[in-house]
């Protein structure tokens, strides 16, 4: 029996990290929104690592924050240890990463959703998506027969679709973290013509605190001075717990090698693609034979639990073998597994099915985000959820879509990679994926994206004023510093030499000294006679602007070049097979991906520069005919 249960503008399917951002942004932009989840207690759950951020991922969180997203704010409130990775490797790759209290994060997120105006939360499994005759989404059907009429739907189903858990040769139907899988939706999606495939991922064991001998492990502390993710976070932050490092050894590797055939990956039972960057311990041992040991990060799951997470040794070996090899590790001699490691196989879609708005190319009003799109990671999911949510709203409101290009943000890089190149294994963002890294720093994420967030109505007046003030201060202080000249005093040279740079014989500009990689503002602050208070983030911006001026200029020129090519739009209905001169492979790829502009076309693998010239001439000819 089916029955009508309600009418919404936007429906979000799944309440993980993608679903949360999608639902919140939709409700905040004023549309009537509903979010469905199989289990209300798993909103914003972290079934794998209890951490947020990391290289490039930290950048994503800062960008989400600048666009008014929630992830960074909640991470700031629930973290138990915070560190900036890659200090000393340059500002472009500084990356914030925090350990979070998993339960608190999940509870806080649930509460934020509950309190959000315009947003309803339903515990319900969606089993059907109904389109109208124009292939526009019309309604959703729940497992219990309820029908919801909607104008847009956003699929954020994570790893729930037809998921199977593997532990050794045992496998069973099951979602992540002991949840129920979603067994009906895949078939419907295939009926809608969506290209579905199977990925797998894995997670390591959780162990009991009392079974670890911490005295034998290396300690890993958080940063003394903590940087928050969110521009809005002002309260003082502190580290609450320690993390530790353990190592595998020869004995560990021997046990794993001897039992390798018991891993479903190696027995041939799992054939789907796993993430390359996050290999299981058995993968690491097989692929990197020469490595004598592998690192394991021992991380608390929260303040009110004894569970510890073992980062770096995900596996799908049987539980007894897990027990056996863990016990060979120094400090783990008496280890007690609470939740065994497992691998999970799930259905997801090929992201080249999407436009850059994350709307399906041939289903109006249906969007996808997160692991369903073939990515991996909470941050990647949240970023896509935000963009899909914003675009769903903009389309309903009849406004211009939000498409972030590769030079604007890591979010732009992530989405462009997905929709242009697709992915053959779960996609993870990395700094090396961005060609404009020196511009896409986490320290300037606010400058890059806050104005966009403000235009969308996602940035409050208070925050906007604070942001404007920061920009003004950077300008004022920079101009002031540019005017300071330093005489070649003994004191100056003493400082220069102590920082291992050359002394000066004649006068020098303050900013010329600051340009030297070895010199920080605080080193020469004594020569800056000002009573004004200059905040650390303003100093940081000035230092980066001055020190990296040359690189930044280079990158800006590259960006201008890229944007020039991106501005050459390709009409949707173009018939590639009619274009004389295109190679066969190029025609095939272009037809499949339907690039929006010449720049995107050029990034498709199999499309050569010569093909782009042909295409470019064809387009100009087309424009002229009109």
């Amino acid at each position, binding site marked *: 029996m089916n029955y009508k249960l309600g009418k919404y503008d936007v429906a979000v399917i799944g309440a993980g990290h993608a679903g949360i951002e999608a639902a919140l942004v939709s409700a905040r932009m004023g549309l009537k929104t509903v979010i469905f989840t199989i289990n209300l207690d798993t909103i914003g759950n972290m079934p794998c690592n209890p951490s947020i951020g990391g290289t490039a991922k930290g950048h994503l969180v800062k960008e989400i924050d600048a666009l008014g997203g929630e992830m960074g704010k909640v991470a700031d409130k629930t973290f138990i240890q915070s560190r900036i*990775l*890659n200090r000393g490797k*340059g500002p472009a790759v500084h990356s914030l990463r925090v350990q979070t209290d998993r339960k608190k994060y999940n509870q806080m997120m649930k509460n934020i959703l509950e309190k959000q105006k315009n947003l309803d939360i339903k515990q319900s499994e969606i089993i059907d998506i109904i389109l109208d005759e124009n292939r526009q989404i019309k309604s959703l059907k729940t497992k219990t027969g309820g029908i919801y009429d909607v104008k847009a739907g956003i699929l954020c189903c994570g790893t729930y679709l037809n998921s199977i858990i593997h532990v050794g040769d045992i496998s069973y139907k099951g979602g992540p973290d002991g949840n129920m899988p979603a067994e009906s939706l895949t078939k419907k999606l295939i009926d809608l013509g969506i290209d579905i495939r199977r990925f797998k991922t894995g997670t390591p064991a959780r162990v009991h605190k009392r079974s670890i001998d911490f005295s034998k492990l290396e300690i890993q502390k958080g940063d003394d001075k903590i940087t928050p993710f969110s521009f809005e976070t002002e309260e003082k932050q502190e580290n609450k717990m320690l993390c530790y490092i353990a*190592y595998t050894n020869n004995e560990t590797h021997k046990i794993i090698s001897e039992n390798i055939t018991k891993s479903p990956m190696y027995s041939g039972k799992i054939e789907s693609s796993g993430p390359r960057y996050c290999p299981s311990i058995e993968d690491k041992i097989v692929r990197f034979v020469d490595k004598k040991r592998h690192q394991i990060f021992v991380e608390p799951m929260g303040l009110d639990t004894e569970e510890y997470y073992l980062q770096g040794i995900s596996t799908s070996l049987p539980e007894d073998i897990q027990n056996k090899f863990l016990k060979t590790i120094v400090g783990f001699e008496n280890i007690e597994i609470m939740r065994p490691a497992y691998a999970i196989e799930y259905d997801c879609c090929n992201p080249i099915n999407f436009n850059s708005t994350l709307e399906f190319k041939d289903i109006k009003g249906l969007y996808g985000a997160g692991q369903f799109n073939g990515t991996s990671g909470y941050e990647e999911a949240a970023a896509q959820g935000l963009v899909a949510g914003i675009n769903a709203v903009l389309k309903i409101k009849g406004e211009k879509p939000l498409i972030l290009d590769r030079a604007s943000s890591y979010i732009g890089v992530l989405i462009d990679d997905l929709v242009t190149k697709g992915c053959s294994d779960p996609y993870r963002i*990395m700094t090396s994926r961005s060609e404009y890294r020196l511009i896409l720093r986490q320290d300037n994420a606010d400058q890059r994206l806050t104005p966009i967030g403000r235009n969308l109505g996602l940035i409050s007046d208070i925050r906007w004023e604070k942001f404007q003030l920061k920009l003004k201060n950077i300008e004022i202080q920079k101009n002031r510093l540019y005017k300071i000249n330093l005489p070649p005093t003994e004191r100056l040279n003493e400082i220069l030499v102590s920082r291992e740079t050359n002394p000066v014989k004649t006068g020098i500009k303050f900013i010329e000294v600051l340009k030297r990689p070895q010199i920080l503002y605080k080193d020469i602050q004594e020569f800056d006679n000002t009573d004004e208070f200059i905040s650390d983030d303003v100093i940081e911006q000035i230092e980066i602007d001055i020190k990296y001026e040359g690189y930044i200029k280079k990158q800006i020129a590259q960006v201008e070049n890229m944007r020039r090519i991106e501005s050459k739009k390709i009409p949707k209905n173009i018939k590639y097979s009619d274009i004389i001169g295109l190679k066969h492979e190029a025609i095939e790829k272009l037809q499949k991906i339907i690039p929006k502009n010449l720049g995107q076309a050029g990034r498709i693998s199999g499309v050569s520069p010569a093909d782009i010239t042909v295409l470019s*001439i064809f387009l100009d000819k087309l424009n002229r005919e009109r």
Partner: protein
Amino acid sequence: MEKTIVAIATPVAYGGISVLRLSGKDSLNIISKIYISYKGKDIFKLKGYSGCYGYVHNEGQKIDDVILFYFKKPYSYTGEDVVEISCHGGILITQKILRLILENGGNMAEPGEFTKRSFLNKKMSLIEAESVIDIINSNNEMALKLSISNMEGNLYKKISEIKENLLNIIGHIEAFIDFPEEDLEDLDINKIKQNLILNKNLLNNLIESYDLVRIMKQGIDTAIIGKPNVGKSSIMNLLAGFEKSIVTDMKGTTRDIIDEEINIGNLILNLSDTAGIRKTSNIIEKIGIEKAKNKIKTVALNIFVLDNSTELSIEDFDIMDILDINRTLVVINKLDLERKIDVDYIYNKFLYVVEISAKNSISIKNIIDKINLIFSTDKIENYSTIVSNERQRNCVIKSISSIENSISDIEIGQTLDGICIIIEEGIEALLELTGENINQSIVDKIFSNFCVGK
């Protein structure tokens, strides 16, 4: 903003006149750096559709007399500011001027780019545009063929090898950056620097071999040297196939260097007949002799002519002292006269010797065979597929300069994020040759070489 492009507009051929064409807003700017009008005209004040006689120079050193034509935007072939330079024909001079323009900010035009611009600026009809597509199309296929033959070429292999090396360096740095929590081997910045220097040197070698092959393809600079009246000009005429030098029996007839570009089978010789080398008090002759001696040191091939009928003299020994035996062909002339020369000495000292009589036209074959031996065509075959153009050479030069910058950035202590960008720029220049995408290459490298993951 579109770049200013340049290309040789006339077919590559010998003799006659060659035209170089520039198009884009910097055309006059670029030319102003290398061109001087004989009448002292300011080229920036030229009217459209006007010409101007002058010369092209490289930092003051004159290269060729040329006529410059200026076509002011939009009344030009491309619809942009266009400058055309008509210089004296010959591949060597045209290439020299082209290279000068590239060095001064010009960009090598892609196949069909002038026509493309012409079309985009509405200077061309639709029918004409269709034919452009055909041209580009054929270039596409050509590029494909070229890349297949390049696959087997040594140079392609070398570029790939260097590219791999650089990708390894950057892959290592990137892995170090992207996976800070992995137990990766620490970065030794000095080792990276050494490695960069090594690859820079490899690229430099490549440029040298490019240039060697270019010499072979575009002409081997050759000097005919020897004492006065041994028959240098006769041999020149023999090679050229017609009378060029004024040949008399009087010593010292050739007082200056006379240039001729001649084609001998696979090779082109840029032949210079030089003044006979002897002690003289004649000032003009002295200058000629000085020039000849300089020529010996700079050319790729010396044809050293000796007279069969006279004994070796002090002057001959003087010349022999400055000759490089690897690039010298000794021609013993006047075989029809009685032998007085010490041939054993010659054969012992030199690798390539040929005995002829310049009066006998069959002699020419003997000389050409020997030259072919010196510039073994095998060497050319190996390189010829890829070396042929300036655009590719430019890519390698760009790569070298990026690597040099990255090395100096390491030296001043810049951080890895910035250094990476500069090395990437260097790789990108090489990838332009192999047609790959840089970011994907790096990502692949990270995965294949390092054990990473959380």
